[in-house]
């Protein structure tokens, strides 16, 4: 803004901010794109690949991530230990059981540019399976990002007035029982 001094303006432009994303009931791929954009610094007009302008991103509730379709059973994460017979394939459900942070971590890792900056960017990504955050990270947070997917309401979350206000589409015949 024009009212700030030049030094304050410069400091605000080049400061490294901390973002927080809540991954509850969200697809991990969409969370990962948001993370990778901010880790690289591509959300800033002053972006340059060499200028190290990426920000920190904190992802919480990764244990409650939601995959669309049947990906929990179909998606397979493969790795090789390097030794013969060391090819391991685990489904997303099994990997999530072993480590609830791994799916988001692997997704973000695959979306970052494949160069040496990737490791430093991954160090700036902080993933937590639940709501609990360490106090020093909580003190650094500046902005909360909106969730990419709208969480649908369950039938138990609707009030009785809303359920009654919805019109009945069809009338059952009088002689029909067993609803």
């Amino acid at each position, binding site marked *: 803004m024009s009212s700030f001094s030049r030094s304050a303006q410069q400091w605000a432009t080049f400061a490294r901010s901390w973002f927080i994303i809540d991954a509850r009931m969200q697809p991990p791929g969409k969370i990962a794109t948001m993370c990778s954009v901010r880790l690289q610094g591509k959300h800033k007009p002053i972006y340059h690949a060499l200028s190290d302008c990426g920000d920190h991103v904190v992802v919480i509730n990764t244990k409650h991530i939601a995959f669309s*379709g049947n990906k929990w059973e179909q998606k397979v994460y493969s790795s090789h230990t390097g030794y013969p017979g060391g090819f391991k394939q685990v489904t997303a459900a099994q990997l999530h059981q072993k480590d609830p942070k791994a799916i988001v971590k692997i997704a973000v890792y695959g979306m970052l540019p494949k160069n040496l900056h990737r490791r430093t960017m991954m160090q700036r990504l902080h993933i937590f399976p639940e709501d609990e955050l360490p106090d020093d990270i909580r003190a650094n947070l500046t902005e909360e990002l909106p969730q990419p997917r709208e969480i649908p309401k369950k039938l138990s979350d609707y009030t009785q007035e809303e359920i009654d206000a*919805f019109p009945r*589409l069809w009338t059952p015949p009088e002689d029909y029982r067993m609803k």
Partner: protein
Amino acid sequence: MAARSVLRSVLSSFTGLKLGVSGSNVGVLQRINVPLVSALTVQSRGVRQVVEKQDGKTTTIEGHIQDLSAAAQPPNPEAKCPIYRWNLQHRYNYTDVLLLSQFIRSDGGMLPRRITGLCPEEHRKISICVQMAHRAGQSSTCSSYSPVGLLPDHKPKLPEGHVPKRMKQQLNRYLTRYAIDTVKPIYKRGLKWSKKRMPVGHPVLKDNVRYGFKPLYTKH
């Protein structure tokens, strides 16, 4: 006792005879009548609630006419299917639980089409959306004991004090096309020109109204 049982057997035999003699005629009539009754509103003088009052030796049985004026008139009353009557075709999804809950039984299954009056395509779409809504929300790898999905849990309650041997894995999902136990992992995904995709949603809902520019991806 014996007289009653004899009477019962006679009555049952009579009903059997009636059905047997005029079975073909009655069947034809029923086939003609049933669609009319279920699809359109029944013409009646009014639904009455029967109230019994006892004053000593006199019993008064009254029928109170209930004012069942239609809460809202459908915008398109001439259509046969309830979805077309309310102009909801191509406008609903698995998230519209208030709509879907009107077509399900108490145990979570779909009501028959001849009762609800839905046309075959909409019945199929609604049953697919109901399946997706049941699987959406939270679910687990094994059968769960906690509330599951967007629609209320219809599973029978287990005896109290029952402790499951293994902790069930709670996994959130949405737009699941196939049943969870039937799907196998894709160990070899293939190359770009012949990839084995993971289906999401259902192609039957591809004609739904979309207000954005992005196309609907069913193959991920």
